[in-house]
């Protein structure tokens, strides 16, 4: 399910031409609303749920909903990026929480 932008937290990367989510989206789906200067996904059904935008957002303003085959709307998958580590929190529709932490960089 496509990304949802929290309009209160999104600052449109200060109304830059290409906010980070737009730069990183492999399908070129994220873009700025020219009026509100906030990001949105312009073609919801083309999103692959890769969550690159969620990881890249400096404000933590983007959330993706899981596809219904995996979990209904209470279910969540949230990444948290450290400098050398990413931690995923997976919350299923019964509220069961699992976390996975991986090293992302070895330099």
């Amino acid at each position, binding site marked *: 399910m496509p990304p949802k932008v929290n309009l209160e937290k999104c600052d449109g*990367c200060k109304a*830059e031409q290409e906010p980070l989510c737009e730069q990183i989206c492999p399908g070129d789906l994220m873009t700025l609303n020219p009026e509100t200067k906030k990001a949105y996904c312009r073609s919801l059904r083309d999103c692959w749920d890769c969550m690159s935008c969620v990881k*890249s957002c*400096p404000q933590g303003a983007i959330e993706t909903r899981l596809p219904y085959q995996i979990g209904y709307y209470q279910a*969540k998958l949230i990444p948290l990026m*450290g*400098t050398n580590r990413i*931690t995923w*929190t997976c919350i299923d529709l019964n509220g069961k929480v699992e976390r996975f932490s991986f090293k992302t960089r070895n330099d």
Partner: protein
Amino acid sequence: MEKTQIGLYLCRCHGEIGQTIDLDRLAKAMGNKKGVSVCRIHPAWCSEAGLAVLREDVEEGRVNRVVLAACSPREKEIIFRQAAESAGLNPCLIERCNLREQCAWPHREEPEAAYRKAVNLINMSLARARQAEPLDPLVFPARKAVLVVGAGIAGLSAALDLAAAGVEVTVVEKEAFAGGKVARFYRYFPRFCPPGCGLEYLMAEIRKNPRITIYTLTEVVGLDGGPGNFQVMLRQRPRFVRTEACTACGKCAEVCPAERPQAGPLPVTKKAIYIPEGFAYPLAYALDKEVCRGENCGLCAEACPAHAIDLKAKEREFSLEAGAILWCTGWQPYDAGRLELFGYGRYANVITSLEFEHLALQCGSASGRLLRPADGSPVRRIAFIQCAGSRDVNHLPYCSQVCCTVTLKQVQYVRKLAPEAESYVFYMDLRSTGEYEEMYRRVQEEGMAIFIRGNPAAVEEDPASGCLTILAEDTLAGEPVRLENIDLVVLAIGMRPEPGPESFIENLATWEFPSGHVQCFPFETQRRGLYVAGCAQGPMDVAGTVRSAAGAAMKAMSVISGNFTLPPAVPVVDKNKCDKCKRCMEECPFGAWSWDETQYPAPDLRKCRQCGICEGGCPLGVISLRNFTIKQLTGMIEALDMEFLGRGEPTVVAFLCINDAYPAADLAGRQGLSFPPNILTIPVPCAGAVNMSVVVEALTAGADGVLVGGCPSDQCHYRKGSDLAETRLNNVRETLERMLVEPERVRLVRLQADDRHLFVMEAKRFVAALRALGPSPLKP
């Protein structure tokens, strides 16, 4: 690259550290860590004997990096730096580990915990030292020249001070004559000397001084470069009179047919070609193009015996280089036209305090009698209204400091020029600060004025006689006052900054006057090397202005005397990873960032204050201050044992601002206040320098909580560092909450440098809260 050989030096500090922490055990445990080639214990490394050992280790090639586990990095820095330099080691390769203030002293009662904390602190320092780079200070050649903008009393006295110190000074003045507002005053307080006298003295010195050049009718139109070598673009409007030829004989003005229209309540009889009556520098006429009838008239040029008039003169632009700039553009009176209830602009006999100066100057020099501007009849009753448009949220919210004393001075003009006249002063509070209280007393004792406490509600005019009536409430007597037959009302209006600097200096202050941090950097602006002085800095009297000018001149000297040197901890961008999001440019409080020739963001190192707000804000973490890199911070976090006090005891990583929060923690240790040993501190240049990925890294590496210590909102030396940190941390907290991790694990505390008790309280409370929460769910 040569092999890393870290010398680990443990200091007993004459028992201050050694009594609490078992250093022999520590040396055994840490001596064989990766990269450590030498591990020694000494009673005091800062002593001559200690330094000798240290120097020998470096000179013999046993050690090429030093970790000093001793006192706070804020202490004895020079001693170790000099020792390292004399032995040939770059001082940036000394890493200080704070075992005294933040380990031995506060944890005296718990030696075992202190020992374990010491292990962790040293591990962090070793991690940091492994990645430390040798760096040299940045040196910029500086031009020993200063541009002074504004030839008022501030600019002129600063110019003289600077020239006396051997600096080439260029003064530019927007008007045709130097002297500024002060030149048009009748007298200045407290000695009641004519301002012409002070200005004449300054000018006489300046005329003698070949190092000072004054350009009139000149404005700054462009500014580039930085401290040491600014390139300034200047535009000079034509004077139409060659100053070197003009003898100020006045024959041009005699024939000039163009008269200046009356602008204010005071009559002006000036022709288009004019020179001030009193103080005039340069002593040469100037032609006002707005009023002049143009080349076709040409009467003045014909009349001039010296052939000094050139009606074809053109505006010219030129540039010059300066090492520093003093902004002395002064003030403007508040627009009295907005004070409708006092009738300014409608009634000819309502004037501002500045206009009263001109009136007194005219009357004083002409007839010696005080005459009404409207009809020239003598003034018998005069009323002064204080705080006209000041201390009022609808007008100027602040007090301009000088208006009360100005009125006390002007009341004395009345006594001198119209001894029979009665003066009334309406005031809210009379603020005659410092020695000016003496003037207040004198005015009261000699009965020069009747003081009525109350802000008038209205001023009305009798159209026939031109006399004014003031309606007010005497708030001391509690009764309405109606004062009739007033000949002249003087509004004591406040001061505003002269507009103009906005395009060159963004205002750092909390009000319209562009001054820096009011106590720490009062002369500084957003641009390093550009200093404000005089009333450009804030409302002040003449004495204050001269003081301010001397201070700003000293600031300029610090930039231009010799080479301009900066510490080497500048930000560096990893261009391979930067994706040009421009957040660094947006968030930098000093506007230091711009695109370089390869279209990547690059800081102007001379503007940069090395606060690290760019490092903290970079979403990709690709900006790092040198020797305070994100990689080093990550390495420090990875080196931590996150369960060093045993299971169930929380571990807190604390990033403390070196300006305020870190000294507060040091002070707590120094005064023997004990705080929980769970807190492992990392000094940071500003709370805003903490990148959120580092905070997350600490949490996911197993820390139970992260504490960021910054300054109170309005005290941040870098304007908004702690506020930015708060916004960023709130975003992290929100994400944590969604992940079902308690957001309380991340916390910002705002501390002042002496808030040791607050620090201890916050630390205890935070650790207790974490203990109650249990281990972090993010712990690996």
